[in-house]
């Protein structure tokens, strides 16, 4: 892999001498009705202005079963909602023209969700729900000898990718060309075609270089691409729209905050008798891919623990915050934080160390019988727990820090640093969107040309620098070709097949497998048929399940397992927290490249730490960004010890990128709880929040 310095072309590097610059005019209030849009003074320059009425096609953009208006038509639902689009010759003149536009509104009270919100309002604001149940949780809880209750909250998270959100659109005679920094180019194509009311074939989407996108470019790029395409259609000129950092941070894609209430019953022997769980997702003004988030949050919120009676009620709540959607994990991360924190709490109150407690209760809550598959999963979970526990010397440290906690009784009496250690268990289910109504197939083509060079064609967007390297290595190993003779086509929707959205580690769990199958097929034909040989292979997502059908663990989805131990040290005066070390044990089936797999986990740990620590930005009176708080830098990265387990049975590769965000927050917060003696139940965990716990 060569070091490149200026050869990759990112979205903000696209330029055309005759291009216009597009900007978005946004609402400055959270909720209200637009009374008038006007120009109180003389408008600067000669800009193109586009309103909702000018849109020739569909005025809404869809993300699976959710949709939102492209431009606000009267009812403002959140601060920053796009109202108008402006394009002009220079960015400065476009911004000046946008500033000349006055939107007069009748302001109305905005709604923000909090744990204190009444049940009536929650009911009124619910836009989607999913319930799962098994047995009779209410009865089981009432018959339990102990009931443990816990309320957990996870905040929003901004995906801190480096390159901006943006699009560059060039209108042509036959087709419109869209350069979009998207993880889902075929969604960009259908959205642009729908808004312009033209056939999808007349929209060509190409993808520029992307820095690690951290799942922040799933849906928002489609919105920006449509805006840019509308301005290009109106002006018949190339248009570039780059979302400024201040708009990106305030109104761009973000992880939805989630509030989860757990009620768990335990009998006299210590077995779990019932779980009653409520999941409330604040999806902002317009939910995005909410059915998938609900599904995944429900299916992970019990953790991997055996329980005969379950009742899970989950809801999407509409608020007047900017749209919040999926980020890494699609709801898994928030659920695992809550259940792993809750389990640690139960273990502590039961006076059993959390490692042993977990091992005693492993099992799949959703399955009625303990099949061979479940037994194998229990064994894998046990192995990763044991491995992380042994390598971190968990049991000894846990006992020692428990003793310290009891003796010192909180941070206020201390002069020396405090220590704690926490453990968490999680799994990752990779690959398909389960709620993919269209059941569309994901495809890859491979062509071995006359010169024995291989050309791979896919719309999969690499999430890191190593993904394409892995694809080349996989193909090269099967066909015995040097990786220098394996080429991956640039992404262009008029050439490459639809390989689905690049989410949920699908580059490893699906694209790699499709490349493997394509190359195996070429290898079978290679010495019988003349070159070139072209092969296309596809995989279809499993059918969406119905309520009550717990099929997420079943065929079609690949599963990875992980356990993490985090050891922390706290300065009792400043409450600054330092991570002494992180131990990660992972079983993910076949590992395609050890170095890149470890690198993916380390990047994931940093992403998790960002969620734990980064919680604010500062803006001035003109809504300009003036600073970011708590963003971890290179010096904040702790020692991370990664160990891949070799179960030897599973040969398929599985994704691992989501595991750190499912594991680290719970392990870290539990360690912090042990060190401080305060029960941490929400993230981010900042010194001021610990101070808040201290004050009660």
């Amino acid at each position, binding site marked *: 892999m060569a070091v490149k310095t200026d050869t990759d072309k990112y979205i903000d590097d696209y330029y055309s001498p005759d291009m216009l610059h597009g900007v978005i005019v946004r609402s400055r209030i959270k909720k209200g009705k637009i009374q008038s849009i006007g120009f109180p003074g003389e408008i600067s320059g000669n800009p193109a202005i586009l309103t909702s009425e000018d849109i020739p096609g569909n005025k809404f953009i869809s993300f699976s079963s959710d949709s939102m208006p492209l431009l606000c038509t009267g009812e403002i639902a959140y601060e920053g909602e796009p109202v108008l689009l402006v394009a002009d010759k220079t960015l400065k003149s476009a911004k000046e023209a946008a500033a000349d536009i006055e939107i007069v509104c009748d302001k109305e009270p905005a709604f923000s969700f909090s744990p204190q919100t009444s049940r009536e309002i929650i009911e009124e604001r619910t836009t989607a729900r999913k319930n799962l149940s098994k047995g009779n949780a209410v009865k089981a809880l009432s018959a339990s000898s102990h009931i443990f209750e816990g309320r957990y909250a996870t905040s929003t998270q901004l995906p801190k990718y480096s390159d901006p959100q943006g699009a560059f659109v060039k209108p042509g005679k036959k087709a419109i060309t869209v350069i979009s920094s998207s993880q889902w180019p075929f969604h960009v194509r259908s959205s642009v075609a729908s808004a312009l009311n033209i056939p999808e074939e007349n929209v060509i989407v190409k993808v520029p270089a992307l820095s690690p996108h951290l799942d922040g470019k799933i849906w928002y790029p489609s919105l920006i691409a449509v805006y840019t395409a509308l301005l290009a259609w109106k002006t018949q000129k190339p248009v570039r729209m780059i979302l400024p950092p201040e708009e990106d941070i305030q109104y761009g894609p973000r992880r939805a905050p989630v509030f989860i209430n757990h009620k768990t019953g335990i009998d006299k022997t210590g077995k779990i008798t019932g779980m009653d769980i409520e999941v409330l997702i604040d999806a902002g003004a317009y939910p995005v891919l909410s059915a998938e988030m609900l599904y995944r949050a429900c299916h992970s919120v019990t953790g991997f623990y055996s329980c005969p009676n379950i009742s899970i009620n989950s809801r999407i709540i509409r608020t007047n915050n900017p749209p919040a959607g999926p980020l890494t994990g699609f709801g898994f991360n928030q659920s695992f934080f809550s259940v792993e924190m809750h389990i640690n709490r139960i273990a502590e109150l039961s006076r059993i160390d959390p490692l042993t407690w977990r091992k005693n209760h492993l099992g799949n809550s959703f399955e009625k019988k303990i099949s061979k598959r479940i037994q194998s999963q229990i064994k894998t979970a046990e192995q990763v727990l044991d491995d992380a526990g042994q390598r971190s010397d968990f049991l000894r440290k846990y006992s020692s820090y428990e003793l310290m906690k009891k003796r010192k009784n909180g941070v206020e009496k201390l002069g020396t640093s405090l220590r704690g250690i926490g453990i968490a268990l999680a799994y990752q289910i990779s690959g398909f969107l389960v709620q993919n109504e269209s059941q569309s197939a994901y495809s890859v083509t491979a062509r071995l040309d006359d010169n024995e060079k291989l050309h791979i064609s896919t719309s999969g967007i690499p999430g890191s620098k190593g993904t394409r390297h892995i694809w080349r290595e996989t193909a090269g190993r099967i066909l015995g070709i040097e990786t220098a003779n394996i080429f991956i086509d640039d992404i262009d929707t008029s050439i490459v097949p639809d390989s689905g959205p690049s989410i949920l580690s699908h580059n490893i769990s699906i694209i790699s497998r499709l490349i493997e199958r394509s190359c195996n097929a070429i290898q079978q034909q290679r010495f019988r048929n003349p070159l070139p040989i072209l092969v296309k292979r596809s995989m279809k997502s499993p059918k969406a399940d119905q309520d009550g059908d717990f099929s997420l663990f079943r065929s079609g989805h690949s599963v990875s397992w992980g356990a993490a131990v985090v050891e922390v040290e706290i300065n009792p005066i400043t409450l600054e927290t330092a991570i002494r070390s992180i131990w990660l044990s992972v079983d993910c089936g076949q590992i395609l490249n050890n170095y890149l797999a470890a690198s993916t986990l380390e990047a994931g740990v940093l*992403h998790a730490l960002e969620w734990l620590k980064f919680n604010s930005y500062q803006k001035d009176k003109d809504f300009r*960004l003036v600073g970011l708080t708590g963003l971890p830098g290179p*010096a904040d990265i702790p020692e991370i010890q990664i160990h891949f387990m070799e179960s030897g049975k599973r040969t398929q590769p599985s994704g691992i990128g989501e595991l750190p965000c499912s594991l680290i927050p719970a392990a870290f917060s539990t360690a912090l709880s042990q060190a401080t003696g305060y029960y941490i139940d929400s993230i981010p965990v900042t010194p001021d929040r610990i101070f808040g716990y201290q004050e009660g």
Partner: protein
Amino acid sequence: MVITFTLNGENVTVDTPPEKRLIDLLREDFKLYGLKSGCRVGQCGACTILLNGITALSCMIPAFTIKNNEIITIEGFRKTESFRDIQTGFEKASCVPCGYCISGKILCIHALLEENPQPNDSEILSALTGNRCRCDDIHTILNGVRYAALEREARKHRDKT
């Protein structure tokens, strides 16, 4: 406002409005796309340049203030032996940051090695603290810098002899 300055070894003159940032001048007027416009509040390091040999964030500098100063961007730095030291070091460590942050990282590493030819890990981390990108793990970058330091030392030794 007409200003003259040295850009990648050449004297250039340009007319710039007083409110224009140096990053925009370099990218828009000189088409130097090697430096990137990340956060624009001085926290990501993607826009790093060498200003009179010292690293500076071009998003935080008004363009007119660089009058009569010397600017080197990654495009100019690529032509130097010093760049090749870092390139070789990174390749030896299999360290391949993304194209968005790499120019900033390379210039910061160069400045560090000029001042401190044998930096320890904490000095490397401190030098890179302003470069925030999620594209590579820090241990690989540390290895890359260690290799780069060895390359530079070896080259300087070769040059002397």
